[in-house]
């Protein structure tokens, strides 16, 4: 695309955004007396998106991770993924939703309060705002949707210390880590007063009521910081505190089933449309943009990773293609509703070689055993995507621009430097919060019940020793 056509595309986007916002504004003024009610299309889409994200975790992530470990530990990965998911979902309903998505009074910059603990006040009639003024969805669906995000983030972390962590430690981790790390992160990035408030109040009043990272002006469409950088850092901390696997670097730890890994990666891709496009909270052109970006960035990355392997190592691999696909999905997560499709392709081409570098060169150089490359793919890919969001959102590059609610919903762009700085502040805060919080959580567990299984258990395999079962009885 030429610069001219990019600019035209950007202007067209701006114009349609402005029209959309003004239409919504006019419609709302006419119905000022009525509370908006949810649109059935938006609600149906959010219901489906929620289920798609569940599919990402079970069996998507379970198989993706499971295929990468040795067969003696396959069942342990499946069990950990499934049980972690279940624990986090219950915790979410009990106090997680409240900690993430309510006003936290004095602590509101960092975390919400307990006003909606046990989902008090949430029922079939309560609503939450989307990103369009006057458009709402049922709160109860939003609770379920966000619940799957909390579950998958926590489940992602276990890849870092696969094949050696005690199941009991993982169960405790599933309660403590979301509480100390994930719920505050979700609050800091995604809690804000909403489009109605933002349209009728000065900008600094809106910032004052928002979570800290939102207040920086950092954009994160579907959770590049909250989910991926967060999980990646936690996995690295866990891997380091747990220690390397017995026989690491001397014994073969080759994946036992790249077939299942590919099945898992495929389910992740399909489910990710719920993750990214569902984060739009309504079914419109922006969900469409998020969907298209989730195709294109992923596809570009899925080609780039094996291409670089072909050049640098001689053979393009399936694991490379699957890893590229996941890296692309991670990178587009913060940018899904902000970048233009061409920007998404460029992002995919860029993220794969960088992640490949981290999972091969950097990991071997620094000698940590992040077993399933959660740091190398999710953290690094998330950082690249988060920073790139600040560049790719520029309408001049085909991006959607940033909605300025005080200006009637016009799409603006503060400039590359200010926006990238805002993104960087978000990234840095995430790295620090997750790094410190995860160290506390894993440290606590290590000092009390211990993190790691005994060597004999690790040798025999976690399936038999921790669960009394075999994955395969053949």
């Amino acid at each position, binding site marked *: 695309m030429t610069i001219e056509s990019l600019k035209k595309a950007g202007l067209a986007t701006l114009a349609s955004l402005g029209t959309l916002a003004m239409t919504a504004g006019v419609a709302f003024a006419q119905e000022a007396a009525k509370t908006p009610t949810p649109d059935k299309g938006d609600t149906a889409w959010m219901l489906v998106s929620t289920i798609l994200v569940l599919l990402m975790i079970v069996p998507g992530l379970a198989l993706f991770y499971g295929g990468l470990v040795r067969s003696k530990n396959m069942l342990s990965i499946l069990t950990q993924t499934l049980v972690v998911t279940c624990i986090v979902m219950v915790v979410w309903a009990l106090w997680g939703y409240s900690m993430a998505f309510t006003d936290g009074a004095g602590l509101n910059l960092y975390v919400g309060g307990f006003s909606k603990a046990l989902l008090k006040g949430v029922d079939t009639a309560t609503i939450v705002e989307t990103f369009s003024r006057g458009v709402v969805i049922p709160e109860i669906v939003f609770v379920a949707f966000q619940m799957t995000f909390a579950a998958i983030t926590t489940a992602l972390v276990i890849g870092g210390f696969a094949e050696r962590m005690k199941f009991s430690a993982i169960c405790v981790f599933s309660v403590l880590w979301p509480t100390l790390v994930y719920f505050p992160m979700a609050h800091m990035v995604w809690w804000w007063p909403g489009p109605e408030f933002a349209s009728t109040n000065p900008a600094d009043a809106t910032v004052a009521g928002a979570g800290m990272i939102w207040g920086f002006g950092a954009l994160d469409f579907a959770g590049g910081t909250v989910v991926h950088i967060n999980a990646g850092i936690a996995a690295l901390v866990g891997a380091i505190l747990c220690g390397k696997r017995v026989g690491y670097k001397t014994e073969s730890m080759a994946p036992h089933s790249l077939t299942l890994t590919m099945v898992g990666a495929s389910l992740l891709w399909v489910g990710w449309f719920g993750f990214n496009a569902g984060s739009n909270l309504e079914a419109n052109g922006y969900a469409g943009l998020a969907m298209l970006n989730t195709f294109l960035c992923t596809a570009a990355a899925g080609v780039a990773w094996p291409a670089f392997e072909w050049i640098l190592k001689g053979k393009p691999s399936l694991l490379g293609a699957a890893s590229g696909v996941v890296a692309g999905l991670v990178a587009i997560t913060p940018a899904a509703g902000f970048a233009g499709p061409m920007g998404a392709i460029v992002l995919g081409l860029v993220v794969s070689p960088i992640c*490949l570098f981290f999972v091969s060169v950097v990991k071997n150089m620094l000698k940590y055993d992040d077993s399933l490359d959660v740091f190398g793919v999710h953290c690094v890919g998330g950082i690249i995507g988060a920073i790139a969001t600040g560049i790719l959102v520029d309408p001049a590059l085909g991006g959607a621009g940033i909605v300025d609610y005080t200006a009637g919903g016009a799409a603006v762009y503060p400039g590359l430097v200010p926006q990238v700085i805002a993104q960087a502040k978000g990234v840095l805060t995430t790295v620090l919060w997750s790094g410190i919080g995860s160290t506390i959580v894993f440290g606590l567990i290590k000092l009390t019940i211990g993190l790691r299984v005994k060597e004999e258990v690790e040798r025999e395999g976690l399936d038999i020793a921790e669960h009394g079962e075999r994955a395969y009885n053949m």
Partner: protein
Amino acid sequence: MKLITAIIKPFKLDEVRESLSALGVQGMTVTEVKGYGRQKGHTEIYRGAEYAVSFLPKLKIEVAVKSEMLEAVIDAITSKAKTGQIGDGKIFVTPLEQVVRIRTGETDGDAL
């Protein structure tokens, strides 16, 4: 009686089995094994991890035959299992003390 143990390349199994059947050898036991001789292994790369794999998949065939058939059986296996490339395998011959057919109780030559 002799027990013949042959390590062969897996794709050669059908040819060897057919030629032994033609000689009148009525049974064999096949096991999937890994091994190496002069055939080097290969390198497998999984993301950042490189593994030098020395062992290659092979098949182990065991047949029990009367001593008179030994030469014919060795020739049959050798000619069918050979490709001319390194890694074709080896044949080991060991003396066989006793053989029993479990169903009928027949022994030695009657059990082969």
